[in-house]
Structures are given as structure tokens and as C-alpha cells.
């Protein structure tokens, strides 16, 4: 995030440039949490282990009809939106803490977003602002990875993956936002990246389970988000060195 310092640097500019910087700065201050996230060593952290389940039965889904490159992609692809296991566990839910301002450092490994069999993998994941994402293709057909701000639709970047084995690493924006990723070449390809200003997030696996580690002791709001079933929250209290269990449900829509 560009901050007051570089806005200050702009004072060498002209009247309106300064004006813009001020307006922009005001907008930023209004949008951002009051305190920026602070990295600190977490010595006595606890874990949150939980499961997200879908209440009611999952809506019947029809397979995605492949409309181009059928020779490579096949005729149909199972719709991954509601991936629910035998006990109701819902996959691809992003789970994250709200109002956490201090704690562990950002992950060191870049995120991965793989184009494989004419789909993105993973479908949904959390990320920390400005984190690097490694985009790669395992397919012989061309894909393009085109993330957009999910609220405004504004393009973040749009990179071609012209052939199998190609990969490229790009930074995500410096502001927290929900990102919707598309491939223009294959209109059914979508992925979601939730950018947060802290690293306390996880994605549910095929069984709906998730783990968030190294949480400083305290009481938080645990939030969940799913592309179709929407959002929900639950309070959670983490004690030093302990594992807290949590169970959240989302209703099928």
C-alpha cells in the first residue's frame, strides 16, 4: 500500500496532483482498518480446527457443458460449486478471522493457481495482500488468467498461458479485496481469491474441514465465505497452546 510518505513525495507536483493525493488518502483511510496488521512472534498460539457443513441438501447441479476445445477438455466437466461429502462437509469454503491485528508472518511460499483439465485449481483460497501468486498450466490449449476485483470488475492483470508447462509469478494487489479469476478463452473457468491484510485464513478440504494455526490467545469472530452458499460467522475463543473446535453451517441457495 502506498502511504502518506509517497503522497508526501507528490507535493513536488502541482495543485491538483496534491488534491488527488489528499482525496485518495482520505478514501484509503476510510477503507482500511484503523490499525494495520502487525507481525509478531506467536509463542503461545492456539489452533482452530473445524468443519463447515451445508444445511439441507445440496442443489442438484448439472455438469458444465464444454463449448470449445472439446477434443482436449472433453464434452462435460462436473460442476464444482457444491462439492459436499457424505456427512455434509462443504469444500472450497474460505475460513478467516476477523479483527485480528497482530500475529504470525505472511506465508513464504507463493500461492499457486493451476490451470488443469480446463479448470482452475484450487477453486477458492485466501491470500495476504501483495502476495505473489504462481500461475501455471498443465494443458496444451491456451488459457488466460484474468483476475478482476469482484466488486468493481476492474482488471487486475490478464496473462496468457499459451502452452503446457508455462508458469509465471505475479503480485496480487496491495489492498484487501475479493478477487474473481476468469479465463476468457473458456467462460466456465472461475476461481476465487480472498485477499486479507493478515495471514489467518484457510480453505476447507473435500471433507469440509479446516485448520488455522498459531492464533494468539483471544476471542475472535470466525467468518466463512462460499461462492454460492454465501457467508456466516461464529465467535471463537482461542486459549494458549490449545485446539479449539468449531462447527459452522451454511445454507444451500
Amino acid at each position, binding site marked *: *500500500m502506498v502511504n502518506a510518505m509517497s503522497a508526501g513525495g507528490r507535493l513536488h507536483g502541482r*495543485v491538483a496532483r496534491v488534491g488527488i493525493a489528499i482525496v*485518495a488518502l482520505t478514501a484509503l483511510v476510510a477503507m482500511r482498518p484503523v490499525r494495520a496488521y502487525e507481525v509478531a512472534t506467536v509463542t503461545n498460539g492456539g489452533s482452530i480446527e473445524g468443519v463447515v457443513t451445508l444445511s439441507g441438501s445440496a442443489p442438484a447441479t448439472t455438469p458444465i457443458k464444454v463449448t470449445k476445445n472439446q477434443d482436449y477438455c472433453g464434452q462435460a466437466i462436473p460442476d464444482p460449486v457444491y462439492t459436499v461429502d457424505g456427512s455434509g462437509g462443504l469444500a472450497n469454503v474460505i475460513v478467516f478471522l476477523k479483527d485480528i491485528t497482530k500475529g504470525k508472518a505472511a506465508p513464504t511460499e507463493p500461492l499457486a493457481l493451476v490451470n488443469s483439465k480446463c479448470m482452475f485449481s484450487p477453486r477458492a483460497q485466501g491470500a495476504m495482500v501483495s502476495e505473489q501468486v504462481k500461475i501455471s498450466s498443465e494443458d496444451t490449449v491456451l488459457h488466460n488468467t484474468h483476475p478482476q476485483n469482484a466488486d468493481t*470488475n476492474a482488471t487486475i*492483470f*490478464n*496473462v496468457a498461458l*499459451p502452452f503446457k508447462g508455462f508458469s509465471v509469478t505475479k503480485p496480487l494487489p496491495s489492498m484487501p479485496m475479493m478477487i474473481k479469476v476468469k479465463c476468457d*478463452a*473458456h467462460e466456465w473457468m472461475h476461481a476465487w481469491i480472498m485477499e486479507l491484510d493478515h495471514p489467518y485464513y484457510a480453505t476447507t478440504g473435500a471433507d469440509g474441514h479446516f485448520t488455522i494455526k498459531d492464533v494468539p490467545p483471544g476471542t475472535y469472530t470466525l467468518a466463512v465465505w462460499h461462492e454460492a452458499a454465501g457467508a456466516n460467522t461464529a465467535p471463537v475463543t482461542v486459549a494458549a497452546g490449545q485446539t479449539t473446535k468449531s462447527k459452522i453451517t451454511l445454507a444451500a441457495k
Partner: protein
Amino acid sequence: MFYRVAQSILLLVGALLAGSAVAANTGDVKTGKLVYERYCLSCHGAQGNGQGEAAEYMSIKPRDYRQGTYKWRSTPSGSLPLDSDLEHTLLNGLYGTYMPTWRALDERSRRDVIAYIKTFSPRFGTEKPQDPIIIPPDPGYSVASVARGDAVYKKYNCAQCHGAGGQGDGPSAHELKDDWGNGLVPYDLTKGHVKCGDKSTDIYRVFMSGLAGTPMPTFADSLSPVDAWDLVHFIQSLSPLYAKNMASGETGGAR
């Protein structure tokens, strides 16, 4: 109101920097606003949202300036454009759309109106454009280069959108949308003139920087400059209308 505040700050800074020739190359927003109201507002709208009165009747809509998303840039995908990129667009206009050239305006007015349209997006206050993509000099149009470019076109799968013959009819050519939800088609490369500019460097720039806000992606991360020039020559071979006289050794650079 912020102009007031800004003005007093400037007076202060002005006093501090007394004498130094600040902002010799950036335009004046106030004059730029007048230029804008006179020449651009009917299409681009008073709010800069691309919804001026005339826009309704156009299938290719005037740019909405509020996101800072510009198609024709020398900078990498995701970056803001340089002022010189916007100047390039104003000088050339956008061929085949309602966006005319603004050569008739004097340089000063162009600079001022550029400064003004940038005020519609807060990004110009918080981000800096990245360094431009370097365009090495055109090694020159030749039959051999065209043949190599044909192979590059196939290897890099441009045909997925532009079609095997470049006519904008590839398997993914339909139902493409821009950031504003408007439909658009991959350019028919056999037409003989890309929208922005008529130099070989203008073609090079398009697939290396990508056209932001559209499905047209950047290939800068996968394509080498040598292959890129062959690709340009291949595209130029698709129509006798393309200018192909860029002699070897002539200066590169997108601007």
C-alpha cells in the same frame, strides 16, 4: 473544496521550493477541465464514466476513466499507463471507433486534458506506473521473418481467439466481454490497421502489454523479443494495408 486545501499546501511547498521549475511536463488540471468539457465530455461524460450523451449510439463505448484501466499502454499488464501512452492515443485516435485523433489540439492542451482525465481515477494518486516494456528496434520485415512468425502464431495459440487465419473467428471468439460487461470481438488481424497507431511498434506493444479491461492478455512473460518481432511481421503479412517499411536499425520504443 479540496482545491482550496491543495492550493494552500502548494503555496507552502512553492515557497519551500522557490525557484525550482516544478511540473514542467505535467499538465494543468484546471485548463484540462475546460478542454475536456469542450471536446471530450459528449462521449466520455461529465463524470468520466464513458456515458456521455453520444455514447448511447456507439457499439464500442467510450472509455470509463474511473478505474484507471487503459487498453493501449507501454507498461506491463496491471499497470497504469504513462502520460506518454495517453498522448500516443490522443495523437493517433482509435482507428475504427468513434475516438478521433486530437492532433488538432496543441500539445499544451493535450497535456492538460491528460492531467484532467487522470483525476477521475484515485489510482493515479496512490500508484505509480511500472517501467515500460522495452521494445528493441524492428529487425525489418522479410519473408523469412514472416514464415517464422507464422509458427510463433501457432505455437502461442493466438488462434484460440483470433482464428487460424487471423480473422477474429477462433473457438473462443464469441461471448467475450470487457470489464464493463460490453461484448467485444477479437480484432480481425487481416484488416490492415490496428486500432491504436500504424507502426510496427504499435502491434508489438499490443500483445506484449495486453489490452487492460479486455480478454486480450499479455504474452510478455512467455514470448521473447525475437519471436515477438517475427509475430509482428506475420501479422503485417496478413494485409497489404499494413505499413511494413520500418527499416532495420530504426529507433524502437512504443512511443
